[in-house]
């Protein structure tokens, strides 16, 4: 199957093209089934590819793409452990979202376009994880961004959606330029975009240490943009303007994880530079606690989840920066499942009450009998409650941070875990317990087409942690690092037992606090929002980061533009007026000479001849 793995991204591409051309004729049902069938094909192919990869070694195949001088650039596919795993995760979540969307997006007249965009995104994402070289990765990296842009802007007639789409594209592009520069610099060091060649060059020491650090950090800038890490995170919460299933697929499970994937795929480069690793770990750790603190006070259900995503991605970066290669990827996988579940469950809530405002929800536990428990499963998983998937992966990350010696970051991550449990249960209690504050009287559970994907994700959110546990075996870790000389020291580490206990304790403490405030209301909510009003305002306004950018970078850019427009008008324009004026006055002088007096003409002709003769005499006929 691995030889034909190149078909995997082509299925959704065909679906995209077909729906774009004939979507209108297919109508609603036709186009959704079209999308589902093709994604299903990708999923099945991915599963077989993964099974194949268990037995066979890494497969790689390339064809020539472009010649530049003596260098042949190639395009192709590579199926290694990481890629094979990512293929299954991406195609599975995408398939589930395709199914879910049939219920959620029902009645939207642009459904064929929606499914077309979903197909395009899936194509790009699958292409991204199969790329055998950095140039091809960048190629799909940008396409993924374009797919995300289209889907965020799906409700194009809303001003917010327009702004959010534009912002997402531009903010990620800032990161992408860093990535592009990093790739190009590496190319001139190594003479190739291929991963293997780059890693060989890194290992053989043919690249200077400074260059390794520089390129690694530049590549990380790309990951920062895509994975919504501080300071380029501001687009991700705004991206929630897209349809909720899209948020689940792109802005929770797959695309935003691409940054983490990139760092993981380039891990041998990063691990060769201590500085770069520290940058990754610190950025990740800071983002984890920074975003979690914002998530504490947001009032929009999707925004809380968005900040939670930013925070969890920070966790993954922290893991990678602490040499926890397996921990990072493990959390990427479990997070994909439970965060997709949370978004879909949130979508189901929004579908039922037609609002995203937490203040207008409440008491939905009895009315949403399937969504409620599923949401709880997701909440427990992300909070790191024992026995669910998030518990194991978060534990791996904390262990990695501790073992790598990043003790400061370890404590930061632990506090962030407390925040996570708190804001997630705050969300849960506000939505599902208490009295109904909704205007909506008729609240229905979602149809089966929506609950089925949630149930599958719910099962995965519980069970997917067991592929890598300290108790039953670290299958995932062993497999991921098997036969990979660069990752020898990054597998599972023996954790001190107290880390697991501490992690459990903080998550339970977070739950308890949330329960006391939002569950049985022993503690007044005013205590949080009222008393520390400055803190609350700062958090609620997301540390005023957007405003800061508005007044610094955006304002500066505008100022430069205006300045240059004056340059254009007055200096360049003035120069031209000066030239025309000179020519005109020369012309006037010339016309004054046309006086009709033959004597004057004769004098000028004679004078001219004299000058020419003088030149001839001095130069022998030619200048220079």
């Amino acid at each position, binding site marked *: 199957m691995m030889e034909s793995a190149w078909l995997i991204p082509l299925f959704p591409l065909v679906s995209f093209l077909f729906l774009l051309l004939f979507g209108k004729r297919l109508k609603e049902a036709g186009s959704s089934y079209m999308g589902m069938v093709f994604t299903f094909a990708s999923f099945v192919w991915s599963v077989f590819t993964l099974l194949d990869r268990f037995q066979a070694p890494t497969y790689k195949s390339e064809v020539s793409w472009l010649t530049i001088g*003596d260098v042949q650039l190639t395009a192709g596919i590579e199926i290694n452990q990481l890629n094979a795993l990512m293929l299954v995760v991406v195609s599975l979540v995408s398939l589930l979202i395709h199914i879910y969307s049939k219920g959620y997006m029902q009645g939207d007249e642009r459904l064929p376009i929606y499914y077309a965009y979903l197909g395009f995104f899936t194509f790009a994402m699958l292409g991204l994880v199969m790329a055998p070289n950095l140039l091809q990765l960048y190629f799909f990296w940008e396409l993924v961004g374009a797919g995300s842009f289209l889907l965020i802007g799906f409700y194009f007639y809303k001003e917010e959606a327009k702004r959010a789409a534009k912002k997402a594209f531009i903010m990620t592009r800032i990161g*992408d*330029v860093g990535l592009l520069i990093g790739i190009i610099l590496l190319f001139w060091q190594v003479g190739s975009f291929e991963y293997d060649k780059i890693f060989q060059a890194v290992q053989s020491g043919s690249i200077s240490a400074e260059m390794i650090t520089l390129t690694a950090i530049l590549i990380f800038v790309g990951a920062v943009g895509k994975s919504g890490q501080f300071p380029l995170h501001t687009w991700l919460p705004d991206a929630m303007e897209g349809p909720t299933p899209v948020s689940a697929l792109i802005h929770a499970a797959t695309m935003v994880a691409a940054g983490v994937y990139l760092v993981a795929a380039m891990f041998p480069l990063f691990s060769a530079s201590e500085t770069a690793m520290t940058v990754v770990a610190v950025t990740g750790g800071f983002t984890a606690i920074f975003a979690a603190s914002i998530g504490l006070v947001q009032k929009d259900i999707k925004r809380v989840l968005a900040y939670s995503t930013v925070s969890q991605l920070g966790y993954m970066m922290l893991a990678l920066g602490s040499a926890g290669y397996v921990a990072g990827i493990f959390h990427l996988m479990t997070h994909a499942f439970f965060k997709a579940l949370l978004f879909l469950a949130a979508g189901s809530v929004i579908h039922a009450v037609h609002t995203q405002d937490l203040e207008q929800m409440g008491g939905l536990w009895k009315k949403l009998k399937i969504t409620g428990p599923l949401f709880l499963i997701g909440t427990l998983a992300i909070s790191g409650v024992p026995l669910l998937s998030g518990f194991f992966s978060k534990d791996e990350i904390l262990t990695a941070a501790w073992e790598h010696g990043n003790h400061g970051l370890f404590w930061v991550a632990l506090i962030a875990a407390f925040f996570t449990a708190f804001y997630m249960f705050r969300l849960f209690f506000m939505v599902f317990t208490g009295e109904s504050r909704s205007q909506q009287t008729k609240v229905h559970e979602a149809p089966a087409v929506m609950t089925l994907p949630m149930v599958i994700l719910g099962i995965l959110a519980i069970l997917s942690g067991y592929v890598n546990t300290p108790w039953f075996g670290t299958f995932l870790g062993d497999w991921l690092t098997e036969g990979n000389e660069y990752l020898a020291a990054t597998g599972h580490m023996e954790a001190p037992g107290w880390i697991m206990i501490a992690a459990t304790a903080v998550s339970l403490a977070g739950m308890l606090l949330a329960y006391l405030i939002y569950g049985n209301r022993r503690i007044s909510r005013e205590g949080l929002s009222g008393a520390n009003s400055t803190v609350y305002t700062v958090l609620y306004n997301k540390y005023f980061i957007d405003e800061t950018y508005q007044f610094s970078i955006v304002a500066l850019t505008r100022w430069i533009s205006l300045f240059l427009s004056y340059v254009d008008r007055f200096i*360049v324009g003035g120069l031209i007026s000066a030239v025309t004026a000179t020519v005109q006055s020369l012309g006037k002088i010339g016309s004054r000479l046309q006086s009709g007096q033959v004597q004057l003409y004769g004098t000028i002709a004679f004078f001219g001849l004299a000058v020419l003769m003088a030149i001839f005499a001095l130069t022998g006929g030619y200048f220079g």
Partner: protein
Amino acid sequence: MNTILLTLLVFSPLLGMLLMFLVPKTDEKNLKMLGFLSTVPALLISLYLYIQYATGTDLSRFSIKVDWFRFGNLKSYDPNLFAVDYELAVDGFSLIMVLLTSILATLAAIASMYIKKEWKGYFMLFLLLEIGMLGVFTAQNLILFFIFFEITLIPMFFLIGKWGYLEKEKAAYSFLIYNGLSSAILLIVIMILFARTGTSNIEALRHIMTVGGVSLFAPISDPMKYALLIALLAAFGIKLPIFPFHTWMLRVHVQAPPSIVMIHAGVLLKIGAFGLIRFGMGIFPEQFRDIAFIIAVLGVINLLYGAFLALIQTDFKMVLAYSSISHMGIVLIGLGALNEAGIQGAIFQVVSHGLIAALLFFLVGVMHERFGTSKINDLGGLAKILPVTSGFLLAGAMASLGLPGMSGFVSEFMAFLGLFKEEPVLAAVGALGIILTAVYLLRAVLGMTFGKTKSMSFEGISEIKGIEFAPVLVLLGLIVGIGVYPAILSEPLQATLEAIMLGIGG
């Protein structure tokens, strides 16, 4: 070795011009049809040439060289001295330019359906313009090149001045003055070269300048070489345009009818790049190497200057005009890098921008026809009423901002790849342009298509339809084709690139 195929190619629009005389000048439909058909033979011949090339035929087979006229009476001394021949030929590079020209001419002829008056005169001039462009890319000596170069000016002047928008006369004069200046400088350079070497043949000049060993009629000193190269840079810099010689092209972009801007942005600006590569780099490679850094700096200035100004324009046509300046900066960046990646990137950008600019300006035409405006603030929410047109517009913008899978990415990438090898710091500054390009294009295109529909009077305006699809689909197809499989463009270029690199000695 003499075949008439290239002559047929260059002068085939003449047939249409003659036939035009037979059609009454009020017969709009037939004039437009004839205008379109007259561009087809050139397209077919250039496609035939490309296929011949792709299947392994040596392009030199198609060269033609006939005695034309000579200066002085030196025939017995040396038959080639001061002789000006009629000589046309194509190599990979000029073949691509010819193909670009003939494709865009045909598509612009379709876009000429929006022309409202005096179709006969319009198409006569249009076809004459095509002859000039095709001649420029195939001429093998500087004098012939210059004649064709001038042939493009005159029809352009009238096409802008007569069929343009409100301030068309001003734009036409501005065009004429600047391009006249550029021609004058070019003529001086050509005459100096001709007078001192006795030949205007490009290959011969290349040989004399780079290999040497030929006793010249009068020697050319090194300072003179630099002076000539800088004069060439100025002449073609006006054409390209290089900051600060760009104001004329802004006016042309805004005032000329969209079909003419397709040609102007798509082909005429590219003559500047073609000239810089063919003559600047080809004839004065050593001197070019010395000023390469300056060219790269000029490129970065163009790129950023155009991008910053495009950011605050209120008219979509102005956004595209500044965007052209910005994108020509990438050509200069590639040339300034002066390595395989850079030069190949520059040539790719020439083709790619030609296609993308033509696509976007055709869409401007489509919208102008329907709304009578291209002001961003007057439009808005167009995706609701014209979803397909808006989709194309967005696709055009994505191509222009260098989305992978479209031609703009390949060219931008290669140009930067080249410059990063030579001048990483300068290239990093230039890379800011990549971000700015996304900002100004999305601002403009989303401003027109996303958000609330601005005016109720837009209801009932018809979607892009019928023949209007042809230019859009052809251009998008080519843009994506090059973006996905750039070898279709890079293969024919290899021989030319090798020759250039040999001259530079890199």
